[in-house]
């Protein structure tokens, strides 16, 4: 590695986040007297990363394009609540979960399209638009459709799918734990996001638009179309993630996603995405989600009171936003 490349690496937020993660793992590992490194605990933490990690991918691509999506949890919640309600009423998803997923993805795509249509056509501030649609979607779910919690009546195929596992691990005490099948989807989504962002012209378009929208237009990108597609896809993927969460928790709760954006967005910023767009990587985002999940799931292990959870998450938000703002300032000078 030459000097210039080294310098570039050390200037990236991702690099420091990764160091922080390594240090955290070491510290928690030592304080918990090795408990953290038990196979069962590793599986638990990886499992806990699935939903947040997948949402973070959605959030990342939007932030790379210079936007803010506050509505993805609301889209997910409305999509899966609607999908499970329909499946329940129609008696679907008794043998295969596909119908549930398909419905949720379609609903998510439609809601995302609505975001995309407003954002690309009226050139409004994405944060305000999605904040509006978020409230609107929640209103539709709670008020208009009166969607209710579905717990023990959840269609069996969805429950079964959520309980299915990839492999089983046994820890030193003989305790067994299984790795949920859903983890595959996290890996796939990260891989696909990384591929799209780095290896496709669409992904480069997102970086270009995030870097300089006017230039992207002049360079020949169809900015309007790109944004529309982006928000539609993010909506569809959010619907899919929502269904994953339903299967994992064996229940469909319309409110389960409320305020999720306030933990995901700061995490993505912490992972190196810029609040001004054009920056961010899958690696950094996964690292940041890793940090947050690790801490939230190890506090008791190392004997820290649950009271501190909000303190910690608030700190993450502050650090993430400050780092991003400082970098933007440094760039300006």
């Amino acid at each position, binding site marked *: 590695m030459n000097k210039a490349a080294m310098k570039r690496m050390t200037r990236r937020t991702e690099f420091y986040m990764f160091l922080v993660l390594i240090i955290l793992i070491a510290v928690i590992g030592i304080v*918990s007297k090795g*408990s953290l490194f*038990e196979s*069962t*605990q590793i599986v*638990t933490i990886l*499992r*806990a990363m699935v939903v947040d990690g997948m949402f973070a991918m959605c959030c990342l691509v939007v932030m790379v394009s210079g936007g803010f999506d506050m509505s993805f949890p609301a889209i997910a919640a409305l999509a899966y609540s609607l999908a499970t309600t329909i499946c329940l009423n129609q008696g679907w998803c008794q043998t295969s979960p596909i119908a549930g997923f398909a419905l949720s993805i379609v609903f998510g795509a439609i809601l995302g399209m609505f975001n995309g249509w*407003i954002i690309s*056509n*009226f050139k*409004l501030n994405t944060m305000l638009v999605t904040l*509006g*649609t978020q*409230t*609107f979607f*929640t*209103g*539709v779910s*709670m*008020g*208009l459709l*009166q*969607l*209710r*919690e579905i*717990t*023990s*009546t959840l269609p069996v195929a969805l429950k079964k799918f959520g*309980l299915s596992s990839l492999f089983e691990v046994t*820890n030193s*005490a003989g*305790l*067994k*734990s*299984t790795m949920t099948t859903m983890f595959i989807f996290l890996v796939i989504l990260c891989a696909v996001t990384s591929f799209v962002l780095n290896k496709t012209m669409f992904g480069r378009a997102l970086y270009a638009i995030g870097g300089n929208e006017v230039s992207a237009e002049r360079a020949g990108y169809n900015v309007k179309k790109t944004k529309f597609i982006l928000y539609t896809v993010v909506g569809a993927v959010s619907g899919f993630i929502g269904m994953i*969460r339903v299967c*994992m*928790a*064996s*229940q469909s*709760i*319309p*409110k*389960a996603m*409320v*305020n999720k954006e306030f933990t995901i967005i700061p995490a993505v910023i912490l992972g190196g995405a810029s609040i001004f767009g054009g920056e961010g990587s899958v690696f950094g985002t996964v690292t940041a989600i890793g940090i947050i999940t690790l801490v939230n*799931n*190890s506090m*008791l*292990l190392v*004997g820290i*009171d*649950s*009271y501190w*959870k909000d303190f910690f998450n608030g700190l993450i938000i502050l650090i993430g936003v400050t780092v991003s703002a400082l970098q933007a300032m440094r760039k300006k000078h």
Partner: protein
Amino acid sequence: MKKIIALLLVLVMAFGLIACGNNNANTDETKGTEATKGDEKIKIAFVPKVEGQAWWDYVGAGVKAWAEEHKDVAEVVYKGPTEVDAAAQVAIMTDFVNQGVDVLCFSANDPNACEEICKQARDKGIIVISTESATMTNIDYDVEAFNDAGLGAFLMDELAKMMGEEGEYITMVGSMTMESHNNWADAAVEQAEAKYPNMTLVEDKRVSSDSDAEIAYNRTKEMIQKYPNLKGILGTSSFDAPGAARAIDELGLTGKVFAISVAMPSETRDYLKSGVLTTVGLWDPAVTAKVMLNLAVKMAKGETIEAGIDLGETGYEAVKIEGKVIIGDGALAITKDNVDTFTF
């Protein structure tokens, strides 16, 4: 042109929101058939902790049924915040106080936050009745299916039965600031210390499930990792037992680790039947709500409220009164044998 479309869009969205809001209020507002003659009826507002959750939906249904039955006497509006949010709840209560209802019934997300508005309500002559908020001062009465100590002891007795009265256990609460949950946990621990000398609380800190089964699941796994000999989980929130049960089931620890909490039959039915859970505790919150409403009517009519009074529901035929707290005998142990008798 685009600006106009954008503006229209915003308007449509705004109307949509208002429409949703109205819709909400309309369906929840269980008016008597002759609402115009409302003057003679007792106007009661019922503010739950949150709307859209199975537990409170069930309470809502109970309130609705009661309202239908008593439509000649009272007019009831059931409305709560859309998320567990103390400020939003106080805002709704303030609305009702300003509208000039006769009775305000509620279950506080944060009792302290509700004191001020309750004081105002009482100053205006409104009867204030709460539940799960026994520590409040600015109320007329607080109705409890049992007192906190009673429920805590009940949960511990049941857990001790499962654990064979010995072994390590932890406590789990829905939120670190949820007063009732913490009181139950405290009472349960006291009960164990008094009656079950062979049971040890290994984690002196309360474990928070954030009232989310997924998090209860993660916390359970974390605790089992930390305390390999863990035998019991004393939960409080209705998400604790289902979440813990899923972790116990997945880890293959059925019969080795036991969990209990207050829980909805619908969410624990499968686990009770498969044996992962043995017993969960519950009271019938709809019955408690109806008791609150019955009490409201009695008070509005000017009847004297004293210990031993019959509040018209099973378990509340002769209630105890401790200061401002009315305590019934409404604890229910739900097992695989009786779970199917509950429709919620």
